[in-house]
């Protein structure tokens, strides 16, 4: 696998899968805060 393929893989997977993980952890964090505050 050449250098450019690895870089592309990192950009694509990093953005999409990384973005998905980032937003998921943020959502979990805010949901916990809302639960703690007793919001419904």
């Amino acid at each position, binding site marked *: *696998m050449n250098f450019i*393929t*690895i870089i592309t893989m990192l*950009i*694509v997977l990093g953005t999409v899968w990384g973005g*998905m993980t980032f937003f998921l952890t943020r*959502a979990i964090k*805010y949901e916990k805060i809302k639960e703690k505050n007793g919001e419904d």
Partner: protein
Amino acid sequence: MKQEEFFSSRWSLIIATIGIAVGTGNIWRFSRIVAQNGGGSFLIPWVIFLLVWSVPLIIAEFAIGKSTRFGPVGAISKTAGRQFGWMGAFIVFVSTAIMFYYSVVTGWCLKYFISAITGDLFSTTKYLEYWTRFSSSYQPLVYHFIAMTLVAFVIYRGVSKGIEKVTKFMVPSLLIILIILFVRAVTLPNAIEGIKYFFTPHLDIILNYKVWLNALTQNAWDTGAGWGLILTYAIYMKKKEDISLNAALIGFGNNTVSLLAGITIFSTVFALSTSDAMQQISQAGPANTGLTFIYLPLLFSKISTHYIVNVIFASLFFIALFFAATTSLMSMVELTTRTLIDFGFKRGKAIIMVASLGFLLGIPSALDLNFLTNQDWVWGVGLIISGAFISFSIIRYGVDKFRTEIINGYGSDVKIGKWYNFIIGFLIPVQVVVLVSWWLISSVSWDPEWWNPFHTANAGTCIFQWAVILLTFILLNKAMVNQTFKENN
């Protein structure tokens, strides 16, 4: 009308909305388009359009649905003004017209799942013949009926007992199955060649404008952004629910599934193909079914020397496809049902009307692949116009007011910055104009009789069918809008 039903939690809403976004397009269309557009060269613009098309429009749909608590006709009337209710009706019609043939496609997936699990799929090696025999028989009609009936029953049960319960089972199951298939695929000998092709960009291809336009089209089609479906589910989100973070999760979650499916298919095809792998992935076949219903069954028959292993993997693949199709079909049926509810019908009566009409108007697509291809072409491109109407309604409302008062209003976890104004107010309209013009101009070169409305896929058939529907809804605008607000005051 007081909003009485809600998704029970943030996670239920997200799972149901991911069910809308993840459909058969993530699995078969994505792989084919990647293959036709130079593998890695396509993926870079595809990621960019996730950020400048899909996520902003998903945010818009969530915000309009949550703030207005109406289906598209009432929602667009409230956002853009009552004189533009016909735009909402057009959005409903486009998704409904897609629903007619999508139910047929869902039926195909069910048929192939049953064929796989019973072993019938492996009773032949001539899969084109197998597909032709099936598609030219009465069977697609039977499976179309089953798919529509199943989905109508779920929608009849309502949001929490129907949509929420089914998507909570189907969406995680789909993800687990895809991960199992992914692990198997990347561990096949020679799978690395597929992965290499999938991620290797070529500078000459990346500079080709067609690759960018295909990347935008793929994003528009496979995330469900601009269809009015997410807007409809957003009617049932609680006031305390966030908009932007949920929208980002859905956009990124959808594209995560596309990547999983793409790597799985490329690895499998490169590992097991005896002929030209790229040609096999990129061929469209009848009604774009070449890869899924003709070539993949052949590959599944070679995945192992043990018959039972092949049966398990083929069954898993087709049940995943069936789940993906069903959860998307549910949202289309709910969209039309909700519009009728807004007009004053009870849910039970509305769903009977939608399911009966859906079955009847899906019959031509079930019996004639050319008809299905025509409808896929006309309303597939029509989706871009739906996206434009959503963007237009926000511009009419005031983009900055929409962002600060609705998106960043009560319940928001994160605040969206002014960049959103630029994307919705400028970038999306520009993308729509460029994309629709390109599609129509390209179709002129494919068909010398581009104006002929009776050809399967050209500019004439699109313009004719759009014009008939738009004209009808413009004439009916006052009656539709009055009926919606009369019933809900």
